[in-house]
């Protein structure tokens, strides 16, 4: 199954496989696009998510869907790494701000 299916009828429309992309990654990238686009996110069957991008100014960037896909791949990689770090980030920050004497 493909991770991303791009359809360009009816504006920019992406069908994303849940097998490859998590909700958090989709929302993180979608959020970055909200400045220039109306972003729609809805379920597409059981295994997929549909994302639509409609430019606010009417024209939009012809590469927007591709940029969205690249952003998604990067974001999912970050999430995968995040899982590998486990809770280390929180432990480091907690240790950094703990009292010197450990109390």
């Amino acid at each position: 199954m493909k991770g991303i299916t791009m359809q360009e009828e009816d504006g920019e429309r992406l069908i994303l496989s849940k097998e490859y992309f998590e909700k958090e990654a989709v929302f993180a990238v979608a959020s970055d696009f909200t400045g220039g686009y109306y972003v729609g996110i809805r379920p597409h069957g059981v295994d997929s998510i549909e994302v639509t991008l409609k430019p606010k100014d009417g024209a939009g960037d012809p590469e927007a869907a591709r940029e969205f896909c690249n952003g998604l791949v990067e974001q999912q990689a970050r999430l995968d790494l995040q899982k590998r770090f486990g809770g280390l980030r929180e432990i480091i920050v907690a240790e950094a701000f703990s009292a010197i004497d450990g109390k």
Partner: protein
Amino acid sequence: MTRLLPFQHKRFPGGRRLLVNECGDHHFVAEAVFELMLAGALSEDHPEFPDLQSRLFVSAELNDGFGVRKAAAKYRSRKAYLRDFTSLHMMVVTVRCNQRCEYCQVSCAEQDAYRYDMPVSTAMKIVDLILEAPSDSVKIEFQGGEPTLNWEAVAAAVRYAEERREKAGKKTVDFVLCTNLTAIREDQLRFCRDHGISVSTSLDGPKDLHDRYRVLRSKGSAYDLFRGNLALAREIVGEDRVDALMTATAASLNAFPEIIDEYEELGFGGVFIRSLNPYGFAAEKAAELGYGMASFVAAYAEAFRHVMKVNRRRFFPELFATILLSRILTPFSTGFVDLQSPAGTGISGAIYDYDGSVYPSDEARMLARMGDAHFRLGNVHVDSYREIFGGARLKDLIRGACVETTPGCAYCAYQAYCGTDPVRNYLESGGEVRNMAGTPFCVKHKGIFDFLFSFLDGMTEEEEDVVWSWITRSGRVQAAGGRPGGGIGGRGGAGPGRPGPEACPPPGDGVAGGV
């Protein structure tokens, strides 16, 4: 089995991947190495492993307590500015000004509008409040308008702070006078000399550029007056006690090399390339004065290269790059109020208006002048230190002002070096927290970080020596024998929050300057 420690990353041209970890260490690897890390397949035998391990990106142990403690210690050092709670205090002793600069972010008042002068009693009340701050050392900046027009308040505040300093348990109280130098008198300069007050002023470039938007109410050339009084100030206060900042308008973008040459020619020790902020008169004249941040970044890169050329013959740092490079190349805290996380608003610096109202930043005060007192923390005449600096308003503001939790920043590779500005967010979007991706603030800082990291990845040995000389502020580093690691510990680097001494009030990035 190796373990990855937390880091952010960014793709660079040429198949390079920048890694930056929690404590601000960075390392470039080839994409192929990054892929191995991503797949959990980087072995201890890999040639990159020792570098990645020493910089705390990977660990040879699954439960590396030592690595975590080391990372935590570095993180703690990097955030050390948080210990100096509100050490920079700016007093607006008057809103009157003898100039009417086109980009003035404080929308100054007429020279004879005396109702905008801070009464001496208010100045003393403010000093009392400042001396309640928990920091051992505090810095008081006198701003305006043009502060020399209400000298009575400046002199009273200085004398009173000196008198109260020891009893208040402060090791030092530093003073900075932010003046355009075009109305200053000899007796005022002698007072500065006698009380150790640094002078911070503004210079936008050569005469035509300086006079273009820095306008005297009395007509004539502000530049000519400035030049004459600059010489006098240096003679009386001391060469090393007078510094200047520039503000870049659209007219400056193509003239950065000339501006830098002017700074060098006039004997300044460096230059701070500073962009315009969207407040006050600058907001009203945005179409004429403003520019896109991508244009600023391109011009900044050119300016940086020009400064590098100047450094072939003398020590002459670009001060914004110095702050950022200090953050990138050393583990020490640089505490630059305008670019830190949590934001420096209120917890590193605060500003007191002529009527005793307290704001977390000059930009917040400017908003109040524009009719929106959203960020007002209180007033020294009716609120206590605890109510102003320990109150819900400031806590709410700071709670949301962390890049680690800001959309668009939370996964940014430059998170360890960057910051946020809730006041600017509010001005531009109506909310203190917003998605920063694509905002002018983000475009500017991300663009400059991109440029600096590309520079670092390909710099020559000579350029590396220059960079370290800026960071250590001690002239050229002798290349062999390693890189000096010290020199900017604690509040050091660019000073306690702002490149000091600073001018005021800040029409630029809030760094300072623009009197």
